[in-house]
């Protein structure tokens, strides 16, 4: 499957965990960037690629998906001119006849709304952020803020599906599915692709195809960690079955299976035995990995009070770090509620309040542990929001509709430059002024950082070589470290 590119040395995927073990350092140990070693290939993993296409800069990804479409001009994209033109109509030469959603498309008036939030520059890099993000401000120098992201879809369903699967319509594998398919698991006791959804958030519904495997083998679908007693479906023994009983059941099963193997070649049974072994190991490795109680008080504090509430965004961020530490390849978080059609001031403030501290804590926590070096963190939603008001513009209240033509995402860690801005939007934050980045480009770049050429990780289905980025995608080279 892997096609070797003569220009780049193929680099075999190396297990960080295994290496740490070799070095006598356990899970909790501190590894520095130097120890991770960027060149020494060791052995292949369980993915379809026997080796990465080129030198990977990240070994794993944490994708903090903010579902609903966070408002770019109220968080990262500072627009004083928009503030100055507050209340005036969206100029026709800015809109350029482009389509609006069927929600505000029939409005008679489209008044511009400035951001009611104060902006300031932060860190040595001087990255602008609004007052809604006081904690993120402290890690500004880690961020590569991409202000010129754009997408093709104008409504949630298609837009989320596009960001997560490379197509607006159902049926394709998710990013994590592709990564799992390509690179496999690094830690064989945990699934390579884990999904966590903030619990009890209303808003635009999420659907399981977003972490599905499409036409890829179904083992590549994301495993959703639940917030209840069983992080994985039926992970725990049924009541009345203690570990000794389980062990005896598995021993009997193994005995029976081995009798079959003795009768003749039987790779299916050998595989089955190993899957049961792994399931048994997961019964302890997953609870171990998800045991937030093990974290020291100062770490819990860092993520905020909410971290003690299982299933909260803060708890999921901390879990993401624990899973990154344990070499889970792709960790996908979802946080809903960014769909501020109305009541933006209050509602957006609440969203930021829920996510600002945990997100910042995750970055600094990863950094302190030397994990940020080879962990790519991606933050963003499916589209941005309009610079004009949806519905009536009132003094104390307004809303913004969906806006696919420009929005902000950021990346941090694993191979991207920290403390930079990339791309620019126009003065009214409606169109892109410089360096447009399509969501396919984000996907291509993410894959590139993992050592994968997005055009070469393909799967032949129905006579076509499908890939995550469909027929698009360019790696955004200027942001690479």
């Amino acid at each position, binding site marked *: 499957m892997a096609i070797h590119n003569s220009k780049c040395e193929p680099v075999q995927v190396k297990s960080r965990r295994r290496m740490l073990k070799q070095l006598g350092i356990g899970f909790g140990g501190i590894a520095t960037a130097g120890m991770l070693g960027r060149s020494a290939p060791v052995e292949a993993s369980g993915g379809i690629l026997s080796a990465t296409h080129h030198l990977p800069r990240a070994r794993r990804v944490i994708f903090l998906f903010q579902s609903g479409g966070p408002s770019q001009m109220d968080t990262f994209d500072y627009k004083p001119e928009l503030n100055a033109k507050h209340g005036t109509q969206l100029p026709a030469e800015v809109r350029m006849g482009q389509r609006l959603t*069927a929600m505000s498309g029939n409005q008679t008036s489209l008044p511009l709304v400035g951001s009611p939030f104060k902006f300031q520059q932060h860190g040595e890099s001087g990255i602008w952020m609004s007052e809604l993000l006081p904690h993120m401000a402290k890690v500004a120098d880690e961020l590569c803020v991409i202000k010129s992201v754009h997408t093709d879809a104008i409504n949630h369903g298609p837009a989320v599906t596009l960001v997560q699967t490379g197509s607006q319509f159902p049926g394709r594998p998710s990013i994590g599915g592709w990564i799992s398919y390509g690179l496999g698991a690094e830690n064989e006791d945990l699934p390579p692709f884990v999904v966590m959804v903030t619990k009890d958030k209303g808003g635009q519904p999420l659907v399981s195809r977003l972490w599905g495997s499409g036409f890829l083998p179904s083992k590549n679908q994301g495993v959703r960690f639940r917030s209840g007693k069983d992080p994985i479906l039926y992970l725990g023994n049924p009541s009345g079955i203690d570990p000794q009983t389980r062990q005896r059941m598995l021993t009997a099963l193994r005995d029976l299976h081995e009798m079959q193997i003795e009768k003749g070649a039987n790779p299916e049974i050998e595989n089955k035995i190993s899957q049961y072994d792994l399931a048994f190991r997961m019964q302890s490795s997953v609870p171990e990995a998800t045991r937030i109680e093990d974290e020291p008080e100062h770490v819990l504090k860092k993520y905020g009070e909410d971290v003690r509430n299982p299933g909260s965004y803060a708890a999921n961020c901390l879990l993401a770090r624990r899973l990154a530490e344990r070499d889970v390849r792709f960790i996908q978080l979802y946080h809903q509620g960014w769909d501020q059609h109305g009541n933006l001031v209050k509602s957006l403030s609440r969203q930021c309040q829920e996510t600002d501290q945990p997100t910042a804590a995750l970055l600094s926590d990863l950094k302190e542990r030397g994990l940020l070096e080879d962990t790519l963190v991606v933050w963003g939603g499916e589209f941005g929001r309009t610079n004009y008001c949806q519905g009536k513009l009132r003094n104390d209240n307004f809303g913004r509709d969906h806006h696919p033509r420009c929005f902000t995402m950021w990346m941090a860690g694993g191979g991207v430059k920290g403390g930079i801005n990339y791309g620019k939007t126009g003065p009214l934050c409606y169109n892109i002024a410089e360096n447009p980045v399509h969501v396919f480009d984000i996907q291509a770049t993410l894959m590139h950082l993992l050592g994968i050429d997005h055009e070469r990780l393909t799967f032949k289905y129905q006579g076509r070589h499908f890939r995550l980025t469909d027929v698009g995608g360019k790696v955004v080279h200027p942001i690479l470290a």
Partner: protein
Amino acid sequence: MFHLLRISLSALFFVAALAQSDRSHGEVDFNRDIRPLFADRCLHCHGPDEEKREGEYRLDIREGAFAVLDDHRAIVPGDVEASALIERITSEDEDERMPPADSKRTLSAEEIDLLRRWVAEGAKWDLHWSFRPAERPEAPQVTDQSWPRDEIDQFVLARLEAEGLEPGAEADRERLIRRLSFDLTGLPPTLAEIDAFLTDERPDAYGHLVDRLLASPRYGERMASLWLDAARYSDTYGYQVDRDRRVWPWRDWVIGAFNDNMPYDLFIQNQLAGDLFPDATKEQILATTFNRLHPQKTEGGSIPEEFQNEYVADRVQTLGTAVLGLAFECCRCHDHKSDPITQNDFYQLSAFFNNIDEFGLYSYSTDSVPTPTLRLPTQEQEKELSKAKQAVAEQVACAEGLETEQRQAFEKWLHSSERDQALKSTEPISGQVAHLDFGGTAPHGAKSIPGQVGKGVQLSGDDPINTQVGDFRRYDPFTISLWMRTPDEKKRAVIFHRSLGWTDAGSRGYELLLEEGKLSAALIHFWPGNAIRIRTQEKMTPGAWVHVAMVYDGSSSADGLQLYLDGAPAPVDVVRDCLSKEISGKDGDRIKIGARDRDRGFSDGGLDEFEVYTRQLSPMEIDALAGGTQLSAALEKSADALSAAEREALWQFYRLSLDPVHKESLASLREARKAEADVHDLVAEIMVMQELPDRRPAFFLTRGVYHLRAREVKPETPAVFLPLPKKTPRNRLSLARWLTDGDHPLTARVAVNRFWQMLFGEGLVRTPEDFGSQGEMPTHPQLLDYLSNDFVDHNWDVKHLLKKIVQSATYRQSSEVTSELLEQDPENQLLARASRYQLPAEMLRDAALYAGGLLVERIGGPPAKPYEVAVSFKPVDHDKGEGLFRRSVYTYWKRTGPAPVMMALDASKRDVCRVRRSRTSSPLQALVLLNDPQFVEAGRHLSEKLLHEHGTSDTGVLAAMFRTLTGRRPTEAELAVVEKLYQQQVAYFADHQQQAERYLTTGESAYDDTLPCSPVERLAAHSVVAASLLNYEGFTMKR
């Protein structure tokens, strides 16, 4: 014979009967060796896609490949040196070498060698195999005459002998009955059935068994579960909001069709076009739900055309994958890269499927079933309906019968003094429930302007004016009168409406709009397929005040809806006349003026004197509201002085406004209509296909984008095949018949291949979804052709085909395999053994429930909700009682969060058409089989059942348990293993009674505490053994 291929067959040569596994020797085979290389590495730039073609050279068709180019030829048969193609693929110059470096496609040395040899051997070119009609090959001669039972075996054995292999031994009877029972009914045999088969000494015991299984109603359920994947069946709409929808009657139709052994051609015809058969039955129309099972959308703000376009495309793609085995996904946006299917073909094909009265979004705020629909009344409702209809007809007749009498009363009235009173009391006209004169402060968002009478208002278009009236049902007559002035010719503007919303509510309610400058009045259950709408023929004059009245008589017909302009009836076009269901929503049944959420309002429009009446006004009254004097003039005249027209108009006035007899008759008619409507509104509906009377235009869409309409297209079949005869109507029925013509090269092959796959785990073509040039070649091309023709010759008889295959020696082989054979043929392409693989999700669960007698067998009905739906990503409450234990084919399927156990066990997600499931092995499957309460509960039930049968004999229980779950008796060693586990657990549970109790109370059903000589620890220990065995490959694998 009706040849389906347009491309000349003269250039064909016949492929060697046996494909060679080692390609370095023997003659190069174009279809097997060369075409896939071209398809994969070259056709991206040198294929059928005109836009992407480089240098005008094309390799997808013979004429292109061998064309003379300037001064050279790419391929010179027999002359490697003169062939530019070879030169280019071997060039040292990187700029010259093909494929180009930036394409990321390369040719290996072995592949280059193949191409070189192909040219050297004469560059034989052949039409892609699957586009040629299936041949009628003679069964080949074989050396071993004793093994073959029929032609299938001869084809298989010939190939094996060519490879120097021998077929496998026949599996023993225990294996065979288990394999057959699962394959044909989806459930394992019972011990009694096994014993009966083992002792059946009839010469055709096997045939009898096959017949018995094929006759079982379980057969239909088993077969349906495969077709549901292809049909992307789901009990919810999908996409994002994903509400429930009621489509299970279609699923039951499928089960019935298989059990009735409906011929496959008819099975396809009914589903694609059942509605178009002359005198189509309800069942045939129901079959067409197949085309509506794609995901549907309701997300706020979505653009309906975009999704309607998506639905049509899904129908075409599903047809492509499920019936033709061709991918139509690519050619939606551009010509196919490797197969001779063009973008034009796609849109011509989609034109067959866009001709129904549908809307791109389903209703968020109501539960309307998206049109077109079929009504499925119960027998009782059927009776009630005909009674209610009868009552309405009687009332109508009664009202008509009264007319003579009423006319006499009218004459009397004309000459009486009452007429004077009428003159005095015409102000106001009776029945008024609201009158907004806008004389005071303008409502929020509007501004006061000089109106028609005193002040009027100018509307903003964004702020509706609310009223407190308007809760009319479709059986209520009403009149709405107003003055309006449009500032410009509005493309679309809401004058007033009473609805929960526009597209978010399927427009349910009634409304008056401006559309393309014309007035448009409608009463709607679901737009467009269940509504009445009339539209004025003339446009409204901008800038002028016009009096408008919308008058409705309560009849649910377009005839009963009128528009008056300035007091006179306006000539209108009837846009829709098909209202048959309620027009009211849950709440919000109040008229709103001038704006609607997410719709286009009457911006800057003038409005005055908005009045609502709870009856149908007569023309003279409307004239009066418009400022006319017809009524007062007529009332003032003496009876004799009235013209005939005046007299008639006055009669209308008298009747509708004054006559007490008519009033009473109208009240009775309303009651009768209400009674009918009340029954109607409860009748279940299902989405189906129903052709529009006038063809809705279909378009070639540039890059597949819904609004980039390049040109109109008419329905046609793909050009690579022979076209439909000229005079055949271009509709779905013709298409369905064309597809199922016995000479069609694909339909039968694709079907036979899928049935083969269902029995062997893999098809003869291992890419059942792709018979195109990028798909795999058949492992046994002649066998596939032979079976396809046999299938068609036997009238597409599915049971005949299945029986033929399962009776072959090939099917009956043992699945045992030596390491040598495994190495030589790891994927079992040669069929020297039976395949073994994990049972599909449905069978694993059903077999577990069945073993312990938990499975509730009842065919059809609403979806069942087993435990697992409560722990899915979109949890819903699980059922109590039997709904927990129905066969898995009935499991509630929610697209955005499908049943998680089914998903873990590799079930298809049913977002889109799938004809093959992936088979994976993951620890998540182990966790499900070990810990899912339904498997625990199933194991306990099996133990209870066996404890009843075997009493105190634990060994008896264990041996029977092993045999029930695996279909064979345990060896001594195996029995020792389970006995040991049992003994350990009995001892453990004896010491841990509470644990035993807990284990036994897993699941909803109570455990049996009346078992003789069975303390809790015995039952618990046996249950643990049973639960373990449910994980044993002897249970989970098909062998």
